[in-house]
């Protein structure tokens, strides 16, 4: 695995420091560097040929069985050791050094039963490898160190994603382990062109990040741009995908997420197949997809598993729910404070009737209730799961009912708040739902100042912002603006699968055609 990173050297790196030929010196150096913590295991061994050696690894990060195997192999008779430095030609460094015959690693990598083994003469590399779960073999008299891949730690099993549950479709979700995740992805995309490019970012944290894309489909400029942005990350520890997302996003002050995060491997696989780029990040189940458009938020992988009519209707429903979640409280304010003529007569009378005796103006009432709602949500997340779910229901019901009976708010307000909340839950993307929750308060403010006019102005400002917004160079409002009518096949309406012939034109993919029926294939070539 070859890593690229701007912060190749950690802050405490001692460039050029190479292991000495003395085993004791090496072990001592390692102990000094790591301050010999409890989880650092250093075992001195005597190998079959009688040579002294030491094996170092971190407890908990290595596969115990593998380690036993390694040790067995090293100590067994069969392992003939060429003390004269008959190390095979693959160790270039040793060959280059070439000053002393005793400097090379006497153990041949190919003879140790591990998947990957390599030689190293760089202390930074060695230490980092140990810290990531490799086992290092030091041999008396050899300046080279053999690094044996023995990673194997306890990780969470593949479970159903917590945030994006769907009814029909695969139930596996990403885990915190990047290897598991790449495997999940590979299992879905068996194309030889699937590329994983690894990066290691963070001066101290040293996170593995993999740029995944489908070569020959994705636009190479996009990949370049993603890689360029990743290499600009220079932070001590990008914990989780959130750091990376915020670092490489186009406009960080926008309330809209410009990178999609998901726990679902099928979503990532689908995106890669469309010609997008995915970032797999070690240590988090949330992987990133880019570039995205606004329409990505109303799309759920489920749409593709279901009948196209149903999923089109569902998408329309989600669009409506997004609008409701964004505008309903604002509209409530505008209609109740300004434009009483715009309500249907009967509704106007009955609302006026229910509001009689409510001490607060509708503006205050709305802000009060919406804030309470947000409070409930926040509290619901913090609480242990079984209670958390109940607090949503109980809190909503009890507080709403009590507030109405107490005459603090009008019943219509409670309806509005409840509908808004439900509508915002119907949005498939959590990140987008959060931005809508945020913007809702802006709309409410605008409505409080200028009524419907204010809402329109706020809407226009919002649209300008969206029109100016880009996600990795792709216009955020596509395929609506810029208008790509071909992409409308998978926009709000999802046409039958047979008709989704092309990849999204807005992504400007290298291979535009998805379905190669004979006639269509010819037409498109």
């Amino acid at each position, binding site marked *: 695995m070859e890593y690229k990173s701007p912060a190749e050297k950690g802050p405490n790196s001692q460039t050029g420091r190479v292991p000495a030929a003395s085993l004791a010196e090496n072990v001592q150096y390692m102990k000094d560097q790591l301050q010999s913590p409890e989880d650092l295991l250093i075992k001195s061994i005597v190998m079959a040929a009688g040579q002294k050696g030491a094996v170092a690894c971190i407890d908990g990060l290595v596969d115990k069985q593998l380690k036993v195997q390694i040790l067995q192999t090293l100590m067994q008779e069969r392992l003939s050791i060429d003390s004269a430095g008959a190390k095979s030609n693959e160790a270039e460094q040793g060959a280059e050094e070439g000053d002393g015959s005793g400097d090379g690693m006497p153990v041949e990598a190919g003879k140790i039963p591990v998947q990957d083994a390599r030689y190293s003469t760089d202390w930074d590399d060695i230490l980092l490898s140990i810290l990531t779960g490799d086992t290092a073999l030091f041999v008396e008299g050899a300046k080279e160190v053999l690094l044996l891949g023995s990673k194997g730690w306890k990780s969470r099993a593949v479970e159903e994603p917590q945030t994006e549950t769907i009814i029909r479709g695969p139930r596996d979700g990403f885990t915190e382990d990047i290897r598991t995740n790449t495997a999940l992805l590979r299992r879905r995309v068996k194309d030889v062109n699937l590329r994983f490019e690894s990066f290691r970012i963070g001066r101290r944290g040293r996170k593995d990040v993999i740029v995944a894309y489908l070569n020959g489909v994705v636009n190479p400029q996009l990949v370049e741009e993603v890689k360029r942005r990743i290499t600009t990350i220079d932070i001590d520890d990008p914990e989780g995908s959130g750091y990376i997302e915020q670092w490489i996003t186009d406009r960080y002050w926008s309330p809209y997420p410009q990178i999609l995060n998901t726990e679902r491997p099928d979503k990532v696989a689908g995106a890669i197949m469309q010609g997008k780029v995915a970032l797999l990040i070690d240590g988090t189940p949330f992987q990133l997809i880019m570039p995205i458009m606004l329409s990505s938020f109303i799309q759920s992988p489920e749409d593709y598993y279901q009948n196209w009519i149903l999923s089109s209707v569902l998408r329309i429903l989600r669009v409506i729910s997004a609008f409701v979640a964004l505008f309903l409280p604002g509209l409530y304010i505008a*209609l*109740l*404070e*300004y434009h*009483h*003529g715009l309500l249907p*007569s009967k509704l*106007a*009378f*009955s*609302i*006026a*009737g*229910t*509001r*009689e005796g*409510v001490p607060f*103006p*509708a*503006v205050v009432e709305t802000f009060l209730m919406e804030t309470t709602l947000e409070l409930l949500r926040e509290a619901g997340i913090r609480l242990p799961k079984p209670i958390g779910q109940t607090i949503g229901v109980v809190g909503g019901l009890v507080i709403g009912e009590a507030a109405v009976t107490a005459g603090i708010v009008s019943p219509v307000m409670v309806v509005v708040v409840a509908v808004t909340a439900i509508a915002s839950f119907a949005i498939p993307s959590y990140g987008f739902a959060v931005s809508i929750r945020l913007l809702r308060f802006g709309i409410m*403010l605008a409505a*409080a*100042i*200028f*009524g419907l006019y204010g809402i329109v102005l706020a809407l226009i400002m919002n649209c300008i912002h969206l029109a100016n917004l880009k996600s990795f160079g792709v216009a955020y409002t596509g395929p609506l603006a810029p208008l790509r009518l071909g992409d409308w096949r998978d926009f709000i309406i999802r046409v039958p699968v047979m008709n989704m012939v092309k990849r999204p034109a807005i992504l400007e993919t290298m291979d535009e055609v998805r379905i190669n029926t004979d006639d269509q294939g010819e037409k498109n070539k």
Partner: protein
Amino acid sequence: MRIRSRRRIAFLFVASSIALSGCWDRVEIDQRGFIVGVGVDAVIQEVDESSAEEESGSTPSGEQTNSASNKKQNKKAKYKVTYQVVTPSGMKAENANAQPTAAYFHLTVEGTTFSTMEANLAQRMSRAPFFEHLKVLIFSEAVARRPGDFAEAIDYFLRDSQMRRSTKVMVTPNKASEILSTQPPGERLPSAYLELVSSNGANSSRILPHTRIGEVQESLLKNKSFGIQTVSNGSRTYSTLNGTAVFSGRSNRLIGFLDGRETAGLNFLRDSIKGGHIEFPYGDEGRGVFIVQRMTRRMRVSFGKDGLPAFDYHIEVQGSLNEAYQIPDTLSEKTLYRMDEYVGQSIKQLIESAIVKLQKQYRCDVIELADYMSRKHHRWWSKHRGQWERGDDLFSQVPIHVQVKAHIHRTGNINISEE
């Protein structure tokens, strides 16, 4: 980046200055006095204070009536306007056992201009009068008859930005305030009730299609005669919508009324029949009721020697028999044919009675012949425009011929009910 953020701060400053100074128009919805109906009565100059008091006493209990007869105003006052204001808390249908509060109350104001009356209203109401939910506008005969008053009153209800062009207009020979007090059980607002009744055309041929205030303006602008729905005998539990108030294009004021039968005739002429019953005689003894389901009207104009147009109406009505009394064998071809004849005759009678009244008595072209002429024979019309209802009064002279054909398609579930 820094420039941008500075700009945003500047923007925020301006925005917050707006925010702080904004909200001029913010009014709570429960602070609005929704006015749903307006009844315009005339103040007869001789009327004295006591009659006004008397009137306020006659309004039903549960309503508040503020007789706003300001003495000073009364001297010059032209209109006495009853505003129907909704009390929203009364609109709530809950609490069946609780004492139901009235859903509305009336305020009566006198004055010469409507805006000052609205201002007067505001002086008396805790809530600002709000007209956007105005449903019906009722003029009493006295106001409608006085020259100039009607158009003047209409102006306010068109010009004010709170008004909608779809507000229904009605004329009553009785007092408008009485009509507004109609409250049939089950309906909470008299105005809403009147609005619903006014669009009952599909059930009765004697209701003129409802007149929207916008249409009235168009008619006034064109100086053409027009009809307005008439609502009469307002009592506690019902008002009757029946008949037509005929407004003359010459003076833009009320000339007279058409009764229900004549209104039905007018509806046939104007092709505005949506349904309704026609009673017809059968022979000497028999009677039947015909239900109109569809009608088609064709009209033709022919010019006579004197250059006068003559109008031919061909009206075809299709429908079913709904009631039969002493009619033999309703299934036989012969009876059906005869019934068709009788129905046709009855309809023709209706129509002719309307024509006679309009041509001879009122001399008002509510039939919209003028429109027809201006559309189809524009050249003739532009020459004789001035002579149609004025001058030579051509309208009252033009011959109008009517032919009615009726077809009974269905005779119901039974043949005959008694032998």
